């Protein structure tokens, strides 16, 4: 959409130049292959209460694949509410959830605009579905809660070229991060929830060219594999053993129907691991 209110920069990639070390003599950049176990997730940092003016807030960082200790996904979430609904809205006996997810313009390799685009609205809808299953809505009649997530850095490895890695799979990682950070911020805000929700991603990846076999890994990074066939993002409630949101994307092999449930199971595993980080960080909030 044309954004005429601002003086926008040139449309296109905003990757800063990365200069090679003099000692490194590699002719071509090696693709970083996955060094984690297929059922291990990346290190995560989660802290609540970072925005004092909001009812609840949380900040999440996930490390990247390129270098150890460098983070690739940075999310900040603020929750405002419960607040009264505007006069024009109809009576509602339960709380009205509204979610806004926005990538900062400098967050991804392709510069994004200041106004929300359809992919961000999509993320917001998935996030709302994931959280609606966890919030006890009828304790707060005639109220609304606003969840606003800013993605400060998208999960894209700056070291790899634009040809490797795919933007669409990075959205899944961003969504699972959004679910986890929103759940932490909701608990910080004091909104009644049935359980803590955590997000996890499982993918069917193919390495080794045409003859390679497909295997399932969790917390995938698109630049680490030759191709990602399919992926699914799960929002899971551990105590209740329930899934509140499920997003599947990609091409599945049609000879094996069991792959669907296998991917979901691995997604649940990833959620459980993320939930452990969430529980520990909430425990630190109250101390």
């Amino acid at each position, binding site marked *: 959409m044309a954004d005429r209110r601002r003086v926008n920069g040139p449309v296109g990639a905003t990757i800063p130049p990365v200069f090679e070390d003099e000692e490194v003599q590699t002719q071509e950049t090696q693709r970083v292959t996955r060094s984690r176990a297929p059922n291990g997730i990346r290190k995560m940092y989660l802290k609540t209460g970072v925005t004092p003016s909001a*009812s609840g807030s949380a900040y999440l960082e996930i490390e990247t694949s390129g270098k150890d200790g460098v983070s690739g996904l940075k999310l900040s979430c603020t929750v405002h*509410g*419960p*607040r*009264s*609904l505007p*006069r024009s*809205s*109809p*009576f*509602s006996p339960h709380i009205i959830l509204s979610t806004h997810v926005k990538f900062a313009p400098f967050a991804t390799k392709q510069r994004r605009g200041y106004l929300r685009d359809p992919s961000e609205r999509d993320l917001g809808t998935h996030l709302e579905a994931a959280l609606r299953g*966890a919030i*006890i809505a009828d*304790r*707060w*009649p*005639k*109220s609304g809660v606003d969840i606003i997530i800013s993605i400060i850095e998208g999960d894209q490895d700056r070291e790899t070229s634009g040809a490797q890695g795919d933007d669409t799979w990075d959205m899944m990682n961003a969504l699972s991060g959004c679910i986890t950070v929103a759940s932490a911020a909701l*608990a*910080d805000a*004091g909104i*009644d*929830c*049935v*359980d*803590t929700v955590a997000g996890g991603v499982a993918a069917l990846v193919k390495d080794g060219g045409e003859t390679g076999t497909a295997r399932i890994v969790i917390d995938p990074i698109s630049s680490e594999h030759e191709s990602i066939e399919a992926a699914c993002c799960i929002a899971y*409630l*551990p*105590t*209740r053993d329930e899934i509140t949101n499920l997003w599947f994307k990609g091409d599945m092999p049609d000879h094996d129907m069991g792959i669907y449930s296998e991917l979901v199971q691995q997604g649940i595993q990833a959620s459980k691991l993320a939930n452990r980080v969430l*529980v520990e960080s*909430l*425990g630190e*909030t*109250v*101390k």
Partner: protein
Amino acid sequence: MATSASQTLAIPGQLLGSASKYQPGPGTHIHESNLYSSLLGAVHVVQPAKAPGPVKRLTKITPAAPPAELPTISVSRSGVSEKREVLPEVGNTVLCRVVRIMPRQAVVAILICGDTVLDAEWQGLIRVQDVRATEKDRVKIYESFRPGDIVRAEVISLGDQASYYLSTARNELGVIMATSEAGNTMYPVSWKEYRDPETGLGEPRKVAKPY
């Protein structure tokens, strides 16, 4: 009522106990006969008041003692309890400020619910039939409230999309603080009049009985 506060931490979804051993308090919910926490905070268990023992009278037939009450378990964020938003519920006493008066209702902004100062802007409505308990048909809103008065009222209903319904139809409900047209704070003289100390003029209000 004996209170014992245990400092165990609870996160949403944490199992607190069985519903046959505890009563659910604020911050908890029941699922499949078990009590789970719905908030992040410290767990508090409140023992019920002990029922008085039976009176010793040989000729009196007393019914069987009522079953012992269960302790109530609740979760609250200790230390920041003022920060937690509460919702006005039916039966709560609230303090509000009159925003606008109309021939058949007064629109108020609810400021304090119980003991908590509210963060959010809740609107309330005092209809003409809820102003006082007697002679409801002869109430004049202009002689009961004025814009800017502070009123103690009781929530009688969740109301419609825009406002809660409030009532001042008891002796201790009504205007507790009012400013005269000359701009001075007035003091109450009767159930229906406030007086300005400087000018000596009285103004009609529905006055709350001072405690």
